[in-house]
């Protein structure tokens, strides 16, 4: 193994481990501010460090510190302390492990070496995901059971029943998808989606599988225990469900696990159905060939985006009541200075690339970075859909949930398999 190999292994594993973790902070922020805006409220916007509130992100740091310093209670009635401690870890680790097989850029070709851009470059792809995500519910069941609490057990049971029933439509939706792609390897699936249908429509999964994408998204919502399927923690009837006895960082692990799971399932939905890291109409080879025009377009676009973002900040980041020497306006000035220096740095880097480094390896790395950006952006949007659904739809009743799973989604998924296989057999 050369130094480059080792470096790339480290980079990929770091990406696979730390991106979901940093997204937890962003997602919690997005959930709280998003929820507020959906409901015409302001959300957390007071917490600051030296007057800098970062749009409310500092609140996350405050919450994190609070949770870390809280007393870690293990109630006296709990007999199986080992399982009690194990449960939140299981939830968190399984959620994190799922991300290991998701590709975040096309195969990186440096010289004559090929690097598959996954944290763990495995061929089993989607099977790994199904195996690990199914394991995640053990954490919830274990938490509910070892809490020795009626609410906990009820929550755990609900979660178990729900995940088991929704794994079937999910798996069946995947069957027809696999028939289309002809592979279980997520990298190959992503490459498949770089092609064009009839020469002008990007061949993304949701174009080929319009019914499958609905079934899969619904099932994925249920798998992550998010609204409208979050009755495992229904506050109104079973208090908090499986994590009712947990406090401090153990609770935080459940909390973070939920958001990591949400991020990972968004990433999976994007990978399977929304073109993964592919930029529509620009597959990897096109991007590499036309690297210079693309870079020039980015260099032209960056200041425009920066301008509009800055204007938006000026309009919104101020006090909406009379205040002498509004500190929020000073804050905005700093933010805008930061924004423009970021734009300037990017421009300089791109300029250096254009003048000195274009062609060959630099092109490949640039395209990989672009694709990582695209992938993260798409995943971010999908996470927003999760938040959006959560603050729109009410929770299902338990029987409604089972009815939808078994009586609606399951037949639909089977129908989808028949239609898909009929089309594949007759046309291709």
């Amino acid at each position, binding site marked *: 193994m050369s130094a480059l190999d080792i470096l790339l292994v480290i980079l990929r594993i770091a990406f696979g481990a730390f991106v979901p973790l940093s997204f937890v902070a962003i997602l919690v922020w997005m959930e709280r501010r998003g929820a507020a*805006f*959906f409901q*015409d*409220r302001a959300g957390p916007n007071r917490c600051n460090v030296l007057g800098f509130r970062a749009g409310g992100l500092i609140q996350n740091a405050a919450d994190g510190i609070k949770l870390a310093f809280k007393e870690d209670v293990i109630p006296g009635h709990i007999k199986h302390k080992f399982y009690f401690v194990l449960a939140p870890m299981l939830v968190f680790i399984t959620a994190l492990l799922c991300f290991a097989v998701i590709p975040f850029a096309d195969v990186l070709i440096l010289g004559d070496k090929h690097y598959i851009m996954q944290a763990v470059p495995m061929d089993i792809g989607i099977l790994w995901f199904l195996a690990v995500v199914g394991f995640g519910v053990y954490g919830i069941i274990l938490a509910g059971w070892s809490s020795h609490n009626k609410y906990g057990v009820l929550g755990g049971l609900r979660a178990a029943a729900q995940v088991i029933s929704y794994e079937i439509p999910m798996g069946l939706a995947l069957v027809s998808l696999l028939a289309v792609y002809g592979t279980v390897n997520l990298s190959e699936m992503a490459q498949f989606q770089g092609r064009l249908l009839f020469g002008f429509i990007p061949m993304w999964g949701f174009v080929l599988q319009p019914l499958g994408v609905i079934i899969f998204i619904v099932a994925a919502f249920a798998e992550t225990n998010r609204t409208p399927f979050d009755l495992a923690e229904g506050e109104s009837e079973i208090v908090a469900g499986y994590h009712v006895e947990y406090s401090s960082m153990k609770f935080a692990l459940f909390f973070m696990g939920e958001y990591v799971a949400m991020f990972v399932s968004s990433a999976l939905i994007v990978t399977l159905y929304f073109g993964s890291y592919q930029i529509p109409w620009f597959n990897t080879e096109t991007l590499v060939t036309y690297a210079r025009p693309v870079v020039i377009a980015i260099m032209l676009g960056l200041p425009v985006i920066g301008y509009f973002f800055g204007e938006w900040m000026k309009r919104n980041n101020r*006090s*909406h*009541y009379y205040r002498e020497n509004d500190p929020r306006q000073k804050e905005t000035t700093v933010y805008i200075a930061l924004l423009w220096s970021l734009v300037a740095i990017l421009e300089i880097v791109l300029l250096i690339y254009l003048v000195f480094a274009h062609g060959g390896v630099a092109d490949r790395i640039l395209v990989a970075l672009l694709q990582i950006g695209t992938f993260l952006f798409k995943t971010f949007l999908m996470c927003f859909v999760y938040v959006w*659904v959560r603050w729109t739809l009410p929770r299902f009743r338990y029987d409604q949930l089972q009815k939808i799973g078994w009586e609606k989604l399951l037949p639909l998924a089977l129908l989808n398999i028949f239609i898909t296989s009929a089309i594949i057999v007759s046309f291709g």
Partner: protein
Amino acid sequence: MSIKVRTVERKGRTFLEQLYLVEVIKGMTVTLGHFFRNLLDNSRLYVRHYPEVEPEITARWRGRHRLTRHEDGSVKCVACFMCQTNCPSNCIMIEAGERHDGRSEKMPTRFDIDLLECIYCGYCVEACPMDAIRMDTGIYSVTSYSRDSMVLGLEELLETPGAFDEEEYKKGGG
């Protein structure tokens, strides 16, 4: 004689509504509209930026109590114990003393209101025959760091000014 019967139309039974997805998307469009309206210009949020921007309190609002005085500065209260007797939460504690300014025979030497006990029902104000106790200070946020400081004494009650003029207070039914 016929009873008017209005048949309420049952919603949610058509095929499209039973399909659920269409309705979900409709609902999500509504919330997304709110989201972008607020994201693009957050001055449109329906919120009051509370600690800085305070709500307007009307003269009828039952805030913290105060004791009133006559024009010449003497205490209106005659220590008749009406308010203390009437108080459902027993938060008023009066001790009466002799009065020498000729207005009546008694005046309070001690008048404590325990704000932690008070339920702000306003019965003391209604019971008072002298219009001596009022809840028109406009103070709605009663907080403190210690239990002791939540008990108001005679001096404090007399010092607190009213937030409204006489005209407005009378209009509020006082």
